[in-house]
């Protein structure tokens, strides 16, 4: 549970950094999706039902920050998390190249799901396409570094899932 809270705090910090980067003049098409990188890390390292809920909550943070619609980012992040969890046994994310490609695809996927979930409530423009590609590239460039830092700092010593550690803490 402590780890779940830790990831929520990390997610809030990532939302804050993204907001500050935009405020300092970074174009929105060049914004790296830091929260998404945390979700990718969760999908590969914290495979459990609780981890799914953490990904959902991280999406809600981003939805609340936009203060427009509640749900699109939550849905997008949960889908990315699910996909990562399913693929995690087949991929070696420690390789920077693989991490970058996964982040690129996850970013495109998350943005497309965000668009689809909010399609009824907002019109789409050509600028959205450049934003998706730009954000995906920036996320891919940053992902190996952030995932490396997260892996070093948050490497668990015993059980591999959030759920198990939670169960173990309850049992103890």
């Amino acid at each position, binding site marked *: 549970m402590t780890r779940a809270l830790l990831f929520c705090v990390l997610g*809030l910090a990532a*939302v*804050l950094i*993204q*907001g*500050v980067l*935009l*405020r*300092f*003049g970074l174009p*929105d*098409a060049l*914004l790296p999706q830091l929260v998404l990188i945390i979700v990718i890390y969760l999908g590969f390292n914290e*495979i*459990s*039902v609780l*981890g*799914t*809920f953490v*990904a*959902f909550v991280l*999406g809600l*943070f*981003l*939805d*609340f*920050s*936009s*203060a*427009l*619609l*509640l*749900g*699109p*980012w*939550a*849905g*997008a992040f*949960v*889908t990315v*998390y*699910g996909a990562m*969890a*399913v693929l995690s*046994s087949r991929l070696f994310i420690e390789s920077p190249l693989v991490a970058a490609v996964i982040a690129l695809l996850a970013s495109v996927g998350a943005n497309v799901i*965000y668009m689809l*979930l*909010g399609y*009824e*409530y*907002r*019109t*789409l*423009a050509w*600028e*959205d396409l450049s*934003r998706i590609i730009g*954000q995906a590239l920036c996320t891919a460039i940053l992902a190996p570094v952030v995932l490396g830092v997260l892996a070093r700092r948050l490497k668990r010593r015993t059980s591999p*899932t959030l*759920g198990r550690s939670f169960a173990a803490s309850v049992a103890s």
Partner: protein
Amino acid sequence: MVGMSEGISARARVAITSFSLLCMSLFLTAYSAKHPALVSVGSVLVSEIVTPFQSFSEFLSRSGSSLWERYVYLVGVSEENEDLLVRLRKVEGELALLSEFRTENERLRALLNFVSESGLEGVVGRVIGSDPSGWVKGVMIDKGSSSGVAVGMAAVVSRGVVGQVVATSLSSSRILLIADHASGVDAIVQGSRVRGVVEGSGSQLCELRYVTRDYQVKAGEVVLTSGMDGVYPKGLLIGTVSAVQTGGATLFQTVEVKPAVDFSRLEEVLIVTAKPEVSAEAGEPLSSVVKRLRQKEE
């Protein structure tokens, strides 16, 4: 073998939970679109947590914006010139700071003049953040419900209309810019007196919608708020018509509007706390006109 089956079932559980939460997201999206108050509740919570950090980062950027240029470049300068360069940089820094104060002073003076000339009552807020996803054209300001800001209030600057408050917390508020897709302003073209709704197009330009092809709108004409939407006071500058397209099979023409405000350089905004009264003699509300025209088109 047992471990493998456990692993598979754990992934299956995650997949099922993910799918369930995705369905829930879809429901939440639909529900929150009809009940914006739901978003406001969570937004207030997140804002309360994030605002102090955003204000702090804004303070850092304002007080030390030229720190890099003033000091880091001095590394590697020869000892003979070092002292001289430090003094020079200090003076430049002070000049830059004075220049920053002067610019801020001019901006605030323009806003004050605008307030006194327009007769609007309001609260001046400083922009401290932007939408973190980049998908919503919105900004965050450092004034909230404790300063009298409420959802639905208009945000303006001396150059024109900025947007509308969509969420407030005690110490901060979120403003949806008129350049966003979800935004809509009841507008009137100054010269031809044609009415329409200015909506964001996601780019730097907006569109004046629901203008029938019977009316002549020319590029360069000024677009103002009509005051009929009950949000924006009448007569505020929205922008100028940049292009008009009359082709296509629809009843309406496409009118591109270039906003008067450069949203990327917003620093202070005035939140209009006194809501404008809708003039009874101004005619039929545009919402009913749009509804009537849509029915006619169908």
